[in-house]
Structures are given as C-alpha cells and as structure tokens.
C-alpha cells in the first residue's frame, strides 16, 4: 500500500496526462462523423506520433534541467535529409535511414558538447544551433519536394491486421528500445539526479557530464526519428521555419502537460507522449465541432496557458510566502 502511494505520487503527472487524453479522445471520436473507426484512429495516431517523438526528445533534455529549442529544427533537418537520401532500393533506403538517424545523433551531440564542455546556457545555445540546423535544411531543400520509399512509408503509416496503426507500434518500439533502457540504466538515473540538483549529484559521484551528454544525444536521435516519420507521412521534405517553430513550441507544451517539470528531475517520457497526444486531440476537436479554422491558433494558445496555469493551484497551499521564490 505504501509502495503504491509512492508510485502514485511519482507518476501523478503522467496519469493526469493519460486521463486528459482519454477524455479528449473520447469526445473527439464521439463527435467525429466516422466515429471510432480504424481510419480515424490511424490518422490521429500518425499525427500524434510525430509530436510524441519530438516531445520525448524534449523530455530527455528537460529532465536534466535544460531546454532544447532546436528539437523542431532537428526534426525539420531529418525530414529534409530523409527526403533526399532515404529513397531507392531497400538497401539504399536502409543506408539512408541510418544516415538520417546518425545526423540526428550528431546534432544532439553538438548541442550537448557546446552546453556541457563549452559551458554555454542551453537556451541560447539551442536557439543558435537551431538556426544552423535550419540553414542546413534550407541548403538541402531550397524548395519543398523530394521523395521517399513508398512501400516502407505505406507500411509504417498504415494499419496492421486488426486495424492497429503501425505508427503506434513504431512509437511503442522506440519507447521499449530507447526510453525504458535509458530510465533503468545508471546514466538514466544520473540524468534525473542532475536535473534535481547538480551539486548534490556531483557530490554523490554521479557522472554528470556523461549523463547530460547522453540526454542531448538521445534528444537528437528521437527528434530525427520524428523527422523520418514526417517524411513517410508526407512523402516529401520541406525546410519550413514555421514547422520547426511549431514543433518546438508544442514539444515544450506537451512536456508540461505530460507532468514533466521544467526545472528538471521529475516526470517521464511516457507522460510527455500522452501530453503530445492530448495536445493534438485538442487541435482536432475544433474540426469535429465545425469551428472556423482560424480559431485554432488562439484556442491552442489559450488551452496551453490554462494548462500551465493549473499548476499554480499549488500556490494556494503555500504556508510560507518565501516558498514562492523557490
């Protein structure tokens, strides 16, 4: 019983995100003309998985008390690169995919090295490296276009027998292969420790530099996975600053909705995934209720502000005013 209470306290954010998503999605499918059908779910899942992957990428860095404002641009860069090299025969496509993922890892590593060994602040560093990544994307794709391996794209964005969206299975695979081992590894724990208190982690002999670097590298990797999926969904690449900016913004929003603390050290990528799903469903809700599309940006902004402001309810319980300034 006691264990359960600890577990509940630790995962409250994640559970809340799941609850919000389930409610929203129920409203969404309940009001959708096609109802709870396989096609509706596949479309929703394809869109949701993109943001979920970028939100996972953001989680990695946020857990270490950093922030990555370049995730959206790594996502765009991976998209542009994949539409150029992940084409042709099965062998060429495989090489291309490896190339794209390696590029994502390199981008994350670059961020990490500058932040950790260059001792610059993450927010400024990633804002600037974001410009660099976007420059490379523009150089690869000055006009939208490119191609993709259609067979693979259809397989990864379609349905498995039984109507299960393949993209969800891909996401599950990435969670099992990347997030779970990370969370259970020594370096994963170290990343949480660094986020909670860097001096305390250092004093306890935690390898803080390696843990932070791993977090940035995984962030780049996950963002490039998202870029690959985008290529498979759109069959093309586009170097668009708007896409990058939107995904960066929404990744932070998803992380916050998913119960990950922006101050680091608490939360999980699972929460961020459901935060991302919930955020996407909010956007789609407008369509099923037949609202004018230009209400959508305002609606999303207001929801985001409302969600982060809900956290302020804790202020009501503060007994000592000094605790305000944490």
């Amino acid at each position, binding site marked *: 019983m006691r264990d359960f209470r600890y577990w509940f306290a630790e995962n409250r954010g994640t559970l809340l995100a799941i609850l919000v998503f389930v409610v929203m999605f129920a409203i969404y499918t309940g009001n959708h003309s096609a109802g709870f059908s396989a096609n509706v779910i596949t479309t929703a899942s394809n869109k949701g998985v993109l943001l979920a992957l970028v939100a996972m990428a953001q989680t990695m860095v946020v857990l270490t008390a950093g*922030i990555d404002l370049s995730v959206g641009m790594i996502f765009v860069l991976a998209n542009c690169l994949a539409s150029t090299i992940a084409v042709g025969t099965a062998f060429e496509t495989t090489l291309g995919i490896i190339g794209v993922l390696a590029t994502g890892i390199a981008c994350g590593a670059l961020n990490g090295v*500058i932040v950790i060994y*260059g*001792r*610059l*602040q993450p*927010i*400024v*560093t990633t*804002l*600037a*490296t*974001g*410009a*660099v990544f*976007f*420059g*490379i*994307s*523009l*150089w690869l794709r*000055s006009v939208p276009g490119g191609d993709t391996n259609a067979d693979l794209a259809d397989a990864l964005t379609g349905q498995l027998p039984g109507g299960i969206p393949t993209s969800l299975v891909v996401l599950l695979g990435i969670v099992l292969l990347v997030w779970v081992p990370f969370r259970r590894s020594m370096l994963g724990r170290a990343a949480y420790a660094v986020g909670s208190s*860097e*001096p305390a982690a*250092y004093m306890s002999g935690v390898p803080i530099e390696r843990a932070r670097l791993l977090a940035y590298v995984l962030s780049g990797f996950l963002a490039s996975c998202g870029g690959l999926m985008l290529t498979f969904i759109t069959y093309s690449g586009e170097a668009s*600053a708007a896409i990058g*900016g939107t995904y960066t*913004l929404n990744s*932070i*929003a998803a992380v*916050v909705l998913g119960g990950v603390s*922006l*101050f680091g050290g608490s939360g999980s990528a699972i929460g961020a995934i459901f935060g991302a799903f919930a955020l996407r469903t909010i956007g789609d809700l407008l369509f099923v209720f037949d609202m*004018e*599309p*230009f*209400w*959508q*940006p*305002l*609606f*999303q*902004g*207001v929801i*985001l*502000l409302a969600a*982060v*402001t809900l*956290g*302020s309810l804790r*202020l009501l319980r503060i007994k000592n*005013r*000094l605790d*305000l*300034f944490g």
Partner: protein
Amino acid sequence: MGAAIIGFFNRMDRAVLAAFACIIALLLVGSLYSSSFLSPEYLLQQLQVASFLGLIATGMMLVVLLGQIDLSVPWVLTVGGMMSTAAAGWDAPWNLLAIPFGIFCGMALGFANGIGVAYLRVPSMIFTLGMNAVAQGLMVLRTGGFAPQDHATEAMRVLATGRLVLNIPNALFVWGIVGAVTIFVLTRTTFGRAVYAIGNRERAAYLSGLATQRTVLLAFTASGGLAASAGVLLAGYSTKAYQAMGDPYLLPAVAAVVLGGTNILGGRGSYLGTIAGVILITLLQSILSVMQINEAGRQLIYGAVIILMLLIYGRQRKQI
C-alpha cells in the same frame, strides 16, 4: 590621462569590450569586401535598422536581468504593428492614437505575461511561449476571412524612415531616448536596483523588503510595450503591417542581449553591452546579405558565429 583610460577599461565589462572589438573586426572584414562599409551613410543606415532591434533588445534585457526570458516577442511585435495600423483606419481625430494604441496593446500582453510569471509563478519560458501563441491566435482571427486595414500612418512612416535633424534617422533618436531612459532607470532608480537584485536572488530581494512581484510585472509590461513599439516602427518602415513580421526578431534579440555580456541567468549586465550586441548583430546580418550569401548559408553562418562569439567570451564560470 593614461591611468584614467586604463581605469575606464577596467571598469568596463570584458564582454562589452569584446563585443565592441567584434564590431570593429566586422567593419574591417566588411571594408575588405567593399569600401562603402566605412562610409558614414552606410553606418547611419545600419544604425537606423539597428534601432528596431535595439528597442526589442532593451525590453528583452530588462527581463533577462530578472533571470527570466520573453519568448512572446515575435507576435507581440506583430500585434504592435497590426493594431497601430488598425487604429490608423479609425475616423479623423482618433487615428492620431495609432502609435499609442499599438504600444498599449503590446503592454497589455506584456502585463499578462507579468501576471503569469510574477503572481502565478509559471516559468517564463513556457508562459511567454503560450502568450506568443495567444497573440498569434488573436491576429490570425483578426485577419481571417477579410483583409483589414494595414497601412501605416504618415507619422509612423516619418518616425521610422524620416531624417528631420542633421540627417540622423529619426528611428535612431527613438532608440537613443529609450536607451537613455533605460540607463537612467537601471542605474539610478530603486526599480533598476531591484531588477538586478531579483536577478541575483529573488528570495533575498524579497526579504530585503523589495516588492519583487510588482517589479517583475513592470519589467514584463515594459518588454511588451517595447516589442510593440518596434512593431509600430517596423510597420512605418515597410509602410504596412503583416502577419509574422516579428518572427525574425526573437533570436537576434536574445543573441544581442547575451553577446552584450548580460548573464542569461540574470543579475548581471550593462546597457552599454546591449547596445554593442545590437550593433554587432545588425552588422553581421548586413554583411551576410551584402555578400549575397543565400538564405541557407546566412542562417548557418549566423548561428555558428553567435555560438563562436559566446564560446570566446560568454562562458559560464565552472560551477562545481
């Protein structure tokens, strides 16, 4: 005399000196490419363009000194531009209110930011991002479906592009006045001292009896107003306001403040450094465009140069 000069340099921040040195280096590099880089006309023109960024960076610096950040700059700026041009379409006496109305709208958004950050204690990074989305939503809603009046008034155009005195751009005067007021406020008023104190440690500032929350609220309101006034000037400069006109200004504003030696974690920095940072960024952009490097190369070099300059002189002290 010599001792006085050495004393002056000692008192100046190393980062500020480095920023000014980079400006001179950039001008030299530019003059190798074309001699017109050192002509007074070119320099005045650069200062005119820098004035817009200067206004934004002033607000950003206030917020950064507090240890916060204002990511709502792009769309608050757009709100300033679009609302002032909207007011320009009102009936006769009221259209004189175009400029104040635009700035007022920006201040209102900044005020909301301040409430969220100071009183609701939401991290500024996420709250201002959300406010950016809200401002964008409001503007999309306004233009959605019909084409609103978006032409700047004569006053806005004169303010942004005119040269009334000694052939010096009016926009530069605007920045000069704002800058002088900011220097006075930061160094000679209790508000300014409170800003630095809060940036160092808000708890300590609170225990010293400062109204920390009100100070934060005021700083965010000022930041919103300054971003919006840059929007008003930019609308005058290009004779009209348009969607997303503020998007290219977020990174330059943060970069200018940080390159000017202001600590991104708050508490340290001088306005002289921000001036240097703004001129530095403007020159860098200008040189990259004069050299006719395409957009891709510009973004790449721009980001890389900012990282490089920060690595040279903007590093944090080793904490552990």
